């Protein structure tokens, strides 16, 4: 169970983006979070993935309240989350070949010995061939790079997935392909999903339930 309880968060002291938002994702559940641009839904997703420290409120993961955020979170906690962001160009190190990009989380966690097997298998799942794996981000299209970013998010086999506008830049076919990869992974592992976006049709098709930002009890920040 991933519970966000009465979260208040923002980027400036005393000027939160939103106040008192609560959201729960049950184990194995896929929740789509819908809201207009700039409402703070991405910030909430970052709080849920322990990437942004809220000003107030609690994040409870499987019954245990999170105590630290970002590098202060225990390693086991951090690696329980796989995150895919909207803009693959901004979330991929331009110096790394795609194969190293996907392998980076393994290496960072001292599991470099598993790289060969895991990366090959995952790359195949997301549809990247060996030829593409040897390229750097500027040599591939947005869609191909986002496939690599999704593989990177899955390589540590997280229990929770957070997809923040994962497909906003992508064409219909690539969108459908990436969603299929996420769903296959979830069917295999029972991972929970928080998908953030503004495409209602997509999230309603993809997720078990969708939550409207306006129904989460948010009071305006300022």
């Amino acid at each position, binding site marked *: 169970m991933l519970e966000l309880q009465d979260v208040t968060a923002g980027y400036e002291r005393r000027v939160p983006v939103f106040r008192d938002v609560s959201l729960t994702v049950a184990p194995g559940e896929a929740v789509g979070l819908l809201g207009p641009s700039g409402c703070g839904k991405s910030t909430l997703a970052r709080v849920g993935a322990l990437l942004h420290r809220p000003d107030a409120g609690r994040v409870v993961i499987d019954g245990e309240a999170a105590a630290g955020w970002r590098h202060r979170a225990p390693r086991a906690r951090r690696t329980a989350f796989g995150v895919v962001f909207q803009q693959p160009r901004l979330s991929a190190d331009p110096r790394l070949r795609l194969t190293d990009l996907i392998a980076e989380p393994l290496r960072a966690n001292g599991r470099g010995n598993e790289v060969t097997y895991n990366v090959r298998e995952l790359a195949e799942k997301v549809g990247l061939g060996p030829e593409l794996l040897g390229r750097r981000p500027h040599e591939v*299209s947005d869609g191909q790079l986002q496939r690599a970013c999704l593989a990177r998010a899955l390589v540590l086999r997280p229990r929770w997935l957070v997809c923040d506008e994962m497909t906003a830049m992508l*064409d219909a*076919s690539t969108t459908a*392909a990436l969603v299929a990869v996420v769903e296959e992974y979830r069917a295999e592992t029972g991972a929970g999903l928080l998908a953030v976006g503004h495409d209602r*049709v997509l999230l309603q098709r993809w997720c078990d339930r969708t939550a409207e930002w306006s129904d989460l009890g948010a009071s305006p920040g300022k």
Partner: protein
Amino acid sequence: MTTSTFPGPSAPVLSVQGLSVRFRMRGGTFVRAVSDAHFELAAGECLALVGESGCGKSVLASALLGLLPGNAETAGSALLGDDIDLLRADERTLARTVRGRRIGLVPQSPAAHLTPVRTVRSQLEETVRELTDTPKPGIRKAAVAAAERAAFPDGHLDRYPHQLSGGLAQRAATALALIGDAPLLLADEPTTGLDRDLVERTVDELKRHTGETRALLMITHDLAAAERIADRIAVMYAGRIVEHADARAFFGEPGPRHPYARGLLDALPEREFTPIPGMPPELADLPAGCAFAPRCPTATSACAVLPPLDDGVACHHALEAQRA
């Protein structure tokens, strides 16, 4: 969508014939980004060029504006009105008479297109000064009017681009594109990253500005946006236009005829939500025959030969039953 779907008797605003663009790479290889594109665009008409990222759509737009990098080689022609071939015109002509004046560009990422160190007002005023004959005292007023045309709120005129939301930056860029009153509007992915409401508002505004007297070429991967405003659809795959159809027939009955176009529509979440298997080919390494054949469910040995664009579709197995 009451405008005529077929070019009227008047000369087309833009006539593209056999346009090809290739990039010379190190080692003498070529990346063929656009191959043999044909289309015409009449006043009052909106053509949506759709396809997945990396299929050559944006290169085509750059070619029309003379903004290709130095290693690009072009072939064919792109007649603007009846006097300028955009592919042959020199930089001076393009800069002084075409860009902004005869072709307005609504850019792909408006936030990156605006000058970051100057306010929206100052950029609007500069554009008004450069592109119109407004006398000096009237410039300030003309800039405000230009902002209003694109529904850009007055109160935000003195802001810098980084202080604008995505939707406002989009409107600022649209306002700039409309100042020159150009007969052709070129919108390159005008809706990337906007939410659904803003997408609809943006494309409706573009459509409204097109009116009866201008033509709109919208390049997009967003099929819903294309369906909303386009009169005609051109589907691009691996640098080629593989289907060119009336928008209503394409999205409704009888539907797309090229298997790629059909797959693209079926991938929409409101339809089957099934991806097209595989990935598009490398533009540096295109097959001799149909580029879609490796991913195509109906491919046969006939597909080793490049299918010509015949009756609006380039496929040996165009879904015959669908033909109206």
